[in-house]
């Protein structure tokens, strides 16, 4: 699988789990869980796409992790900056910490398993 596509898939899957984990860390958000999961999935896919495109240009696990972490942190910050519509509360730590770590995982996966253009299959 090429790196951007792998980034999209891994980012999306991790985004789903990351969104669902909100039920554990902040159970009061249960009524909005569908929106959280969709948002988290889109965020994960965006991080995956960024990490994947960087991985096409640069072959370095360390850089992949750093890019994934940074992209995850930035997008998670944008999400966390929006307050909970019901309570008006911001969940900076709850969104940014898992978001950045999930981004790092996506960055690692794209570097480790993604196929560069022109690389032989298998």
């Amino acid at each position: 699988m090429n790196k951007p596509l792998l980034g999209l898939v891994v980012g999306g899957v991790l985004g789903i789990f990351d969104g669902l984990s909100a039920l554990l860390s902040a159970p009061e958000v249960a009524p909005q869980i569908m929106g959280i999961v969709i948002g988290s999935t889109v965020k994960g896919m965006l991080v995956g796409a960024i990490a994947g495109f960087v991985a096409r240009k640069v072959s370095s696990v360390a850089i992949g992790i750093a890019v994934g972490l940074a992209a995850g942190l930035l997008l998670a910050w944008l999400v966390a900056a929006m307050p909970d519509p019901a309570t008006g509360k911001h969940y900076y730590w709850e969104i940014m910490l898992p978001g950045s770590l999930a981004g790092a995982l996506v960055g690692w996966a794209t570097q480790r398993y993604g196929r560069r253009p022109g690389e032989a299959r298998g």
Partner: protein
Amino acid sequence: MKELGDQALDHLREVAQEPDLSGTRYELGEEVARGGMGVVYSARDRELERVVALKVVAAEIADPETVARLRREARIIAHLEHPGIVPVHDVGALPDGRVFYAMKLVTGKRLDAQAREVPTLGERLRLFLRICEPVAFAHAHGVIHRDLKPQNVMVGPFGEVLVMDWGVAKHREEPPASRSGAPPTPRPASDHDTAHGTVLGTPAYMAPEQARGEVDRVDARADVYSLGAILLFLLTGQTPGRTKASPEEPTRTWAGPARPPAALPSRRLAPGLPRALEAICGKALAPDPDGRYATVDDLAADVGRFLEGERVSAYPENAWRKARRFAGRHRTAIALVVAYLVMRIVLLVVARV
């Protein structure tokens, strides 16, 4: 009449042994190396204006058998066109009848000297894989080297590897030089030497069947054994037949009867050596050829698998070892997942407080 001094006599003797290159396109340079079969000189090729290496049959052993052997060596190398095998440019004869061949002049260090400058295990293994390539190539063309040892491997300034000294190489179709059954008569080998006589090769790196003079049984697996000994040397600085090897240490000569080299040293001689690598060495150095890797490619593949963190065929794993290898191979991902889970637990605890 005034008598010549010893020093003057030695000098005369040296000059008399120097090859007379008149009538050839080469100008003699300095002596580069000396082996049991010939002497290697640097020389300038006047036609192509480049420096080459000339291997010339040593004057003191210029018998028809040695001359034929040098010609054979040149012919074998000429048929093996591979970046890891020194190319032969020309073959000729000196006015005194001695045969020479011209080849690329190799710069670099011998593996026994270079090994200490390769700092990491991974780099040593990758270097070993580069040694395997030309040997596997030669095997694919029916040629067995039969004298693989660190002294016959040159490592260039850019890490390129050249397998040298094919003087005792054998083509699969060639009739054996001797028959098993007759008592073998090994000749001591000098540092650069390839012993010749009934038993051909260098004892410390020689497969047991080769050491016993069982010529009919010597096949590509004899080179697998020698490569296993080279791998052991790269990993531990030791060879199967000796306790410590270094470039400064005089090379052991073999004056005794033909016998297989001593068994693989115990694990304690190299406490840091991973067990899987030890198993690879053990399989390559199996006394019985049937117990070894069938081909050099198989050996190289196992080393490659070790480098990739995959399971090696020589080392059966239980669940614990498999888990450890998996953890070692995916430690970054495991660290990230553990960090994620720990962070989630911390957030959960904080939320509940």
